[in-house]
């Protein structure tokens, strides 16, 4: 690793060689006796602050050319003396200007990074009617501050690591010392240190490296955009990861039941919370299985319909040119396209899309005899059901399609067997020593108190055993 030499020009050239990009600028100025060069990344450096805290402070400097002395004169609270050229280059790329001067064998890094942030707002994917509304943003520092605000204790540890050969993305590992198992912290740190990738644009990149089964259909890392949920999970004994540039925080270990819990459940009476959790599960089951069973019933087992309904359905599909399975697939395809388009489409076109989706595709397709009304109702209901658990949409929509394909090709028994496969798959997925479907398998009676049924806060005295927290008691 090359180091800074006493020759200012040589050092400047060496640094420029490492940072040949056009937006890396150098600025030279002289104090009373010493010549300075400041190297900085133009777009991400706060030049006002640089002028105020560095240049103005040094213009009148007439002391010795000592890094320690010069650093003392700077009015910036964040300064660091760094001799290695590569590290200095990295700091420049991070937005921190580097100050070089004649006769000095180290550069001074000044923390005048320009941070572009948006305001803290309520996340659109995790809305709560009752409860805190703030959400994470893309700046990791702001995000850590949101977490820190909730833990006024030294036990909250936030350790930042850099991941990504080129992006050098800051990842903040947050945990509660004495509550999060040390083994989990170590394992996460180890896994993170093993990541050798060029850039980490978003936290979702990390999930791949943190999962036991990277190709798994099911989620293995928890996600949230809300600091209150993040803090609650850490308080339960989990570990959290905040990734610079991503508003989505990761929590580990993950249990499937987490996505059936909403922050609001803790702010409403427990019976209401239990009701909505069960409702979410039922909605999800219906969303996955309803199209499959509708197709199975039509193709293989008419008895699943009451006779009157059967005759209505038979009447509706009489002139449809497709088989029941193909018809359902077609409607599902349209729904997925509409869904995808409506998410990414500019808002001003949204209304037009609704009209096209609902009227043109829905009403007209039925009138034209392309698809039947029951098929549209089934898919619409399934579509709504899927959004009852928004964090699992990616997984459940794939499952719904898989179940539909199986129902259309093998029939109801195929769906049952696919469910059996899924059960085995779920119960055998373990991440960081925690089974995915805990507390149901392995069954833990005590921990059911905050699962599908939510008990009163007063009865949730112990942290989930399955998380193996050394600090078991939550409520005294």
């Amino acid at each position: 690793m090359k180091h800074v030499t006493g020759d200012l020009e040589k050092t400047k050239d060496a640094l420029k060689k490492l940072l040949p990009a056009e937006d890396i600028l150098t600025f030279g100025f002289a104090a009373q006796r010493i010549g300075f060069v400041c190297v900085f990344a133009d777009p991400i450096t706060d030049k006002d602050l640089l002028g105020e805290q560095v240049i103005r402070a040094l213009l009148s400097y007439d002391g010795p050319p000592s890094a320690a002395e010069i650093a003392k004169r700077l009015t910036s609270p964040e300064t660091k003396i760094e001799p290695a050229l590569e590290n200095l280059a990295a700091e420049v790329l991070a937005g921190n200007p580097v100050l070089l001067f004649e006769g000095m064998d180290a550069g001074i890094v000044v923390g005048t990074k320009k941070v572009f942030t948006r305001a803290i707002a309520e996340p659109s994917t995790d809305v709560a009617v009752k409860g805190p509304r703030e959400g994470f943003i893309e700046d990791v520092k702001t995000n850590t501050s949101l977490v820190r605000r909730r833990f006024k204790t030294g036990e909250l540890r936030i350790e930042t690591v850099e991941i990504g050969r080129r992006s050098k993305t800051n990842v903040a590992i947050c945990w509660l010392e004495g509550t999060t198992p040390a083994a989990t912290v170590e394992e996460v740190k180890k896994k993170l240190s093993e990541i050798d990738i060029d850039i980490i644009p978003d936290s979702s990149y990390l999930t791949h490296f943190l999962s036991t089964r990277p190709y798994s259909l099911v989620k293995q890392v928890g996600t949230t955009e809300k600091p209150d949920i993040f803090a609650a999970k850490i308080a339960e004994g989990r570990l959290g990861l905040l990734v610079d540039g991503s508003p989505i925080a990761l929590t580990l270990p993950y249990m499937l039941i987490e996505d059936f819990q909403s922050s609001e459940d803790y702010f409403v009476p427990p019976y209401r919370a239990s009701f909505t959790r069960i409702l979410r599960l039922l909605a999800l089951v219906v969303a996955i299985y309803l199209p499959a069973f509708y197709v199975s019933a039509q193709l293989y087992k008419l008895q699943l319909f009451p006779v009157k309904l059967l005759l209505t359905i038979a009447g509706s599909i009489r002139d449809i040119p497709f088989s029941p399975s193909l018809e359902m697939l077609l409607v599902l395809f349209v729904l997925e396209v509409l869904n995808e388009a409506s998410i990414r489409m500019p808002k001003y076109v949204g209304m037009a899309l609704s009209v096209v989706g609902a009227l043109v595709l829905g009403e007209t397709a039925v009138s034209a005899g392309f698809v039947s009304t029951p098929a549209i109702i089934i898919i619409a209901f399934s579509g709504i059901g899927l959004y009852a658990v928004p964090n699992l949409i990616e997984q459940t929509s794939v499952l719904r399609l898989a179940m539909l394909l199986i129902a259309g090709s093998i029939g109801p028994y195929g769906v049952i067997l696919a469910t059996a496969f899924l059960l085995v798959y779920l119960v055998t997925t373990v991440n960081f020593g925690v089974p995915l479907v805990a507390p149901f398998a392995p069954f833990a009676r005590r921990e059911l108190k905050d699962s599908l049924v939510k008990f009163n806060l007063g009865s949730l005295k112990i942290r989930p055993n399955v998380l193996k927290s050394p600090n078991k008691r939550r409520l005294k």
Partner: protein
Amino acid sequence: MKISTRQVLFFLACVAPVGKLILLPARLAEAAGNDLLFPFAMHYLLQAGAVFCALLLAKRGMNFSELLANTFGKIAAKVFMNIYALFLFFAALLPLLEQKLLVQSVFYDTLPSLVSFSPFFLFAAFIASKPLASSGQVCDLLAPIAIAGLAGIFILSAGSADLAALSPAFASGAKGILTAFRNGFGWFYDAAFILPFLGTFDYKKHLALKGTLCYLAGGAAVILFAGIFYGIFQETATNQLFAFTATSKFFSGISTLGRIDYLFIFLLSLVMAFYCALPLQAGVECLLQAYGRRRYLPTIFSVAVCAALLVVSQCTDYRFTEVLGAVGKQLFWIFPLFSVLVPALMLLLRRKRREIP
């Protein structure tokens, strides 16, 4: 990974009974008529004893083949493990065939082709290639599913049953009861499942007693169901091949809501799929204990066994009655031999671990 004792108990109380709800009630009613509860009870008592013995063996902290090798040596143990695996594959045949019939008759209005049931073999191969602990974990989920399914069927069926039809006791005489008892052996070998699982769970406080009681509790549910079944169909019970799918359709709400009972039938069928795959997994485990647990061996064994059973199930497609007759009349003794006698005799094996050359 170990299986917890709770999972063993869940299996005995909730999963094992489900395998007795398809053809068995009609089969026992055929010979015993309204006395069908007696052969059921006799089988359950016999198996409960065997389950007790099998669970007691867990106290020794050795697996099945280690227990055998500890007394008879490695070669004898290996031979016996092969024989036991063969028994388990043979025992798997009957539930598998009845499941196939059930699927073809109950899940499909018109007789479908090979496509409908063959995926089961894929599933069975998948399960059989997994470590035993995975089955233990699944039992945690299967237990509430089985309970919900059974409770649903009970609730929908109970109102239609005339339990007086179960009297008079001993109407079919000792001969009828004993014939039914003999015919039912093919369905009772639950203790045989436990032996390959030895070593994967620890013996905790009174496990043998708790396990036996759980098994008997499951048996009580089956006997109650059999009573309801006979109470509903009485003299025509013999004709009702798929018992658990037949009893609930007389519920008055069915005419307006449609066949809501299918929800419970599906739940129980899900549990049955596991129950049918379990002897295959246990058999593969026996082979693994005999030949060692090399990396791809579980997959190779399970795929081979399931492929063989797929062929057998296709060959016996229209010969189920003959298979039933052969199992009930000629080969019935195999089941108590391996599932009752073996666990009981194994209690006599050397208790202390010795160095095996």
